[in-house]
C-alpha cells in the first residue's frame, strides 16, 4: 500500500514535467507577451519601447523560449513560482487564498452532487418505474444536457432577478450558495443516473436474494447489502467528475465573482500574465492527479477484489 502510493507519487513527476512543457510551449505560440499587452497604446512610442525593453529583460522575455523554460523550472524547484506581472506580487501570494476558495467551492458542490445524486438514484432504483423514477430520470436528462454555466445564469435569473431572494453578487457565506448549487446540481445528474443503473443491477444479484432469504428487510438490503456494491461504480464516475468540477469552476467562478483560481485563470489569460497562468494550470493539474490517486485508493478500499499492485 505505502509502496503503491510512493510509486504513484513518483510517476507524477514526469507527468508534471510534461504539463509544464506543454503550457510553456503554448506561450510561445501566443503572439503578444505580457509587457506588450500591458503598455500597448498607453505611452509614447519612444518611452514605450524603452520601458518595454527594460521589463522584458527583467522577466527574461528577451531570451529564447528554452532558456526561459530552464530559468522557470530552476526557480520552481526553489519554490518560486515567479511574480505576477499584472498584480505586481509573487504568484503564490495571490494563488494561496484563491486555491482555498476553489477547494471550498469544489467540496461544497461535490457534497451537493453526492447527496442529491445518490438519493435520487437510489430512490429511483428502489421505486423503479414509479412516478419518482420517471421524474428523477427526466430531470436528470436535463441536468446532463445543460452546461453548468448556463444553469448558473438561470439560477441568478430566478433567485436574484425574479424572486429577489439573493443579491446578484452576494457577500459572505451566501456567496457560496448559488455557485455550489449550479455546479453541484449539474454534477448530481450523471451521479443519479449511474447510481440508479448500478443499484438496479446490484439489486438483481443472487447475493441480494440470498440475503433476503435469510431475513434481511428491504431497507437493510438496499443500505447494507446493495449500496456498498453500487458505490464502487459511482466512485469511478466521481473521480472523473472532480476534474469536471475544477474545470467547471473556471467559468462558474467568473459568473458568480467567486474569487477562486478559476476566475483568476480567466483574467490571467486575458492579461497574458504567464507566471500566473502557468502556476494555475500546474496547481489544477496536480490537484487532479492527486484526486485520481485518492480515487484509486478508495476503489481498492471499497472493493476487496481490487488489489493495488506495484
Amino acid at each position: 500500500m505505502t509502496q503503491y502510493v510512493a510509486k504513484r507519487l513518483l510517476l507524477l513527476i514526469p507527468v508534471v514535467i510534461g504539463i509544464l512543457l506543454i503550457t510553456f510551449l503554448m506561450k510561445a505560440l501566443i503572439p503578444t507577451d505580457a509587457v506588450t499587452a500591458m503598455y500597448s497604446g498607453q505611452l509614447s512610442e519612444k518611452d514605450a519601447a524603452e520601458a518595454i525593453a527594460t521589463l522584458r529583460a527583467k522577466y527574461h522575455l528577451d531570451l529564447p523560449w528554452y532558456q526561459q523554460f530552464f530559468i522557470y523550472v530552476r526557480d520552481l524547484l526553489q519554490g518560486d513560482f515567479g511574480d505576477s506581472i499584472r498584480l505586481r506580487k509573487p504568484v503564490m501570494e495571490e494563488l494561496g487564498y484563491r486555491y482555498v476558495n476553489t477547494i471550498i467551492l469544489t467540496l461544497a458542490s461535490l457534497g451537493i452532487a453526492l447527496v442529491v445524486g445518490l438519493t435520487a438514484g437510489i430512490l429511483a432504483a428502489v421505486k423503479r418505474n414509479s412516478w419518482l423514477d420517471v421524474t428523477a430520470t427526466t430531470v436528470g436528462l436535463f441536468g446532463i444536457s445543460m452546461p453548468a454555466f448556463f444553469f448558473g445564469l438561470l439560477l441568478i435569473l430566478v433567485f436574484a432577478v425574479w424572486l429577489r431572494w439573493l443579491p446578484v453578487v452576494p457577500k459572505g457565506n451566501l456567496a457560496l450558495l448559488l455557485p455550489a448549487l449550479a455546479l453541484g446540481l449539474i454534477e448530481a445528474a450523471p451521479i443519479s443516473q449511474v447510481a440508479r443503473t448500478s443499484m438496479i443491477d446490484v439489486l438483481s444479484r443472487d447475493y441480494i436474494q440470498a440475503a433476503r432469504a435469510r431475513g434481511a428487510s428491504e431497507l437493510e438490503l438496499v443500505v447494507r447489502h446493495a449500496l456498498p456494491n453500487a458505490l464502487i461504480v459511482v466512485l469511478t464516475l466521481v473521480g472523473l467528475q472532480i476534474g469536471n468540477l475544477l474545470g467547471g469552476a473556471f467559468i462558474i467562478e467568473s459568473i458568480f465573482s467567486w474569487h477562486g483560481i478559476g476566475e483568476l485563470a480567466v483574467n490571467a489569460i486575458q492579461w497574458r500574465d504567464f507566471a500566473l497562468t502557468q502556476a494555475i494550470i500546474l496547481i489544477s493539474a496536480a490537484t487532479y492527479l492527486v484526486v485520481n490517486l485518492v480515487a484509486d485508493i478508495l476503489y481498492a478500499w471499497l472493493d476487496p477484489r481490487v488489489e493495488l499492485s506495484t
Partner: protein
Amino acid sequence: MSKALLAIQGVKTEFRLGRARALQAVQGVDLSISAGEIVGLVGESGSGKSVLALSMLRLVQPPGQITDGHILFDGEDVMQMSARALSAWRGRDVGMIFQQPQSCLNPVKRIGWQVAEPLLRHEKIGRKAAWAAAIDLLRAVGIPAPEEKVLAYPHELSGGQAQRVMIAIALALKPRLLIADEPTTALDVTIQAQILELLSERCRTLGTSLLLVTHDLGVVARIADRVAVMYAGRIVEEGPVEAMLTAPSHPYTKGLIAAAPQLGQAQGGRLKDIPGAIPDLSRPYAGCAFAPRCELRQSLSLKACDNAQPAPTTVGSAHTVRCFGAAGSIQSEMRVTS
C-alpha cells in the same frame, strides 16, 4: 403420515410477460414436508421447481407473483405474514441455499460478517459473540482454519468452500426447514458428494427438514426419504424414494430414470432421452402437459390425455401419480370417456 411442518396447497405462481400474457411457472402444487424429513423435488430445467422453492418462502420477485394457494408453516399462514413477520421467519425458521454459491455471497463483505449477520439480526447477541459463533459455524461445516477464513472475502474461496459457507449461514439459527435449490450443480463432481454428505449430516443432526431441489436423480437417491417429480409446473408423481426409483408409475418419471447414467452400463451405449421439450408455459392447454412427449399416450391413445388434467391417483403406500394411463388409474379414465 406425521403432521406436516410445511404444507402448500394449490400454489400457483406466474410471471407477467405483458398486459395479457403470463408464464404459468407453477400451476397448482400441493406438497408437504414433515419434521426431519428429506424430500427431493426433481424436474428438468424449466419445470418450475426453482420457482416453487422460491414461492415457499415468498421470495418470488416481480414480475413474478404467487396468484393462488396456501402455504402453511407449522400451522401458520405464510401468505398472510406481514413484511416484518416474513423477515423474522426467514433465516430463523427457514433457510435457503442456492445453485451458485459464489454469487450468493456479497463480494464486498468479509465471510465472518456474512455468517454472523443472521445471528446479529435474529438473536440479538453482541458482535464479539456473533463473530465467535461464526468461527464455530464455519468449523462445523468443515472449513479449514475458520479463524482465518472469517476474514476472507468470497472471491478468495473455492466453489465448494463457498457452498459450505452458505450452508453454515443457512443453518446458523438451526432452522426447522432448509430449502436447497440445486446445491451441488455448480460444483466439481468430487465436491458434490462431500457437500451432499454435509447437507444431510447437518440436517439430521439439527433435526432440520430438507427440501432438495435438483435435476439429478442420483443426488435424490443418495439422501432423500421421499421424492416429488415436477413437470411443466405440476407435480406428476410423488412417493417414497424406494418406490419411486424401483417402481415409477408416471411415464415421465420412467423416462427420467431411464435417462440417468448407470454405473456398469454397457460401454458406448447411448443414454436414453425423452424426445421433445417442456411446452410453452405462457400458452394455456387443456390436457396433460406431458402428452405430446408421452410414449404411453401414443400406445394407449387415450382421448383424455389431450382434454383433461389427470387427478392424483394412489398407486402405493404414500405414492401418488397424475396420469390417465398409469396402472390403477386406467379404469377411472375409462369412466371419463364412456
